């Protein structure tokens, strides 16, 4: 019975995805959110860049699911080089 239920659930999901992807072919009218086609060439100038750590949240996941409400366990503070961000972490310094 469990096998049949799992098979039906997978069948439903895939049938939903396949049918609606075919239906999406019929829709071609959408608002454009941006105006990127009208950007002046070489006009993008980002001269101020800074980023710093503010806080952390923690959640617990058991058996592949996130369980319970997020618990906040935060430590504010700036990252030094190789500090909180750790290897591969975002720069973590102010005004680089």
């Amino acid at each position: 019975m469990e096998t049949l239920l799992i098979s039906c659930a997978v069948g439903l999901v895939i049938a939903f995805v396949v049918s609606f992807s075919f239906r999406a072919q019929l829709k071609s009218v959408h608002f454009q959110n941006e105006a990127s086609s009208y950007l002046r060439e070489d006009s993008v100038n980002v001269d101020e860049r800074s980023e710093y750590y503010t806080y952390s949240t923690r959640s617990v996941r058991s058996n592949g699911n996130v369980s319970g409400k997020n618990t906040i366990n935060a430590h504010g503070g700036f990252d030094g080089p190789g500090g909180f961000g750790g290897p591969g972490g975002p720069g973590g310094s102010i005004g680089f």
Partner: protein
Amino acid sequence: MSELKEYKCPCCGGGIEWNAKAQKMKCPYCDTEFEPETLLQYDKDLSKLEDDDLTFENEANAGWSEEEQNKMNLYVCQSCGGEVIADNTTSASSCPYCGNPVIMKGNLSGDLKPDYVIPFKYDKKAAKAGYQKHLSGKFLLPKVFKDENHIDEIKGVYIPFWLFDSDVSGNVIFDATKEIVHHREEEDIIETKHYNVIRGGSVSFDNVPVDGSTKMDDALMESIEPFEFKEAVPFQTAYLSGFLADRYDVDSEASKKRARERIIESTISEFKDTVTGFDSVTTKDTSLKFSKGNVKYALYPAWILNTTWQGKKFTFAMNGQTGKFVGDLPTDKTKFGGLFGVTFVAITIIMYILLKLMGM
């Protein structure tokens, strides 16, 4: 008298207090703790933000000359109220928006004359081919819809657009996160680190179009974009020969809002692209200023086809400059149900056999 400074929690926006036990600043609402230095920097960044200043200046537009007015006729649709312009050599008999008859109304006195026009590059034959291509390869399109031939009613129409130029400068603050998963025996601890990311700079936009006709669906017109303004030429009535031109009924002032929205979204997107190394990046706040803004009035070419099927109106449009064809099509509900059912049964059977073979 000293002024009490209240810091807002970057996490939930609540007022933050000093917590003596933790020896840190702590939010009483979400319990998040912060080092005082973090909040000082955060507050400094927020105080740098000014309200968005997003204004355009108008470029002076000229009206039609008497000679030009004498060459043009204004027609109005008795059914939908749509107004179209055609020169003396072009007779307008039916409305490009609803297909009903139009009657001559008068001249264009008081109207602004377009500054620019992009001439049609695709003819009616190409528009018909575009329509046929648009219908092909669509499995769920009702066959009857394909068979009903409305294609000869396709019309070349110049659509009025307001074109906005602007330089944008300012700052955008993002909330960026990085997830670290600590694996335990029975559970995983997911730690999400939040970072305040600031990007400042400038971006310039030229000729962002907003359609100036209420009769023309805004989403349809945005769907046939982009238009290449470099091919625009100063307006002359001769370009209207053989085509209709929609008369604008939304002025540049009313169109600014849409131009602003798109310019702001693009500016945020450009700044966001420079934020790398995080798992998620969300826009938190903006302080943007528009400068050197001006507005032009132009006519852009489009082939329009209206058709009604089972009581519902369908409008198709082709960009007369690039050939891009758009228009929503109806769904054959029987085919849709059949596709859903067959896929569901087939996948369920395959999954059932596979799971049984795996011993489940």
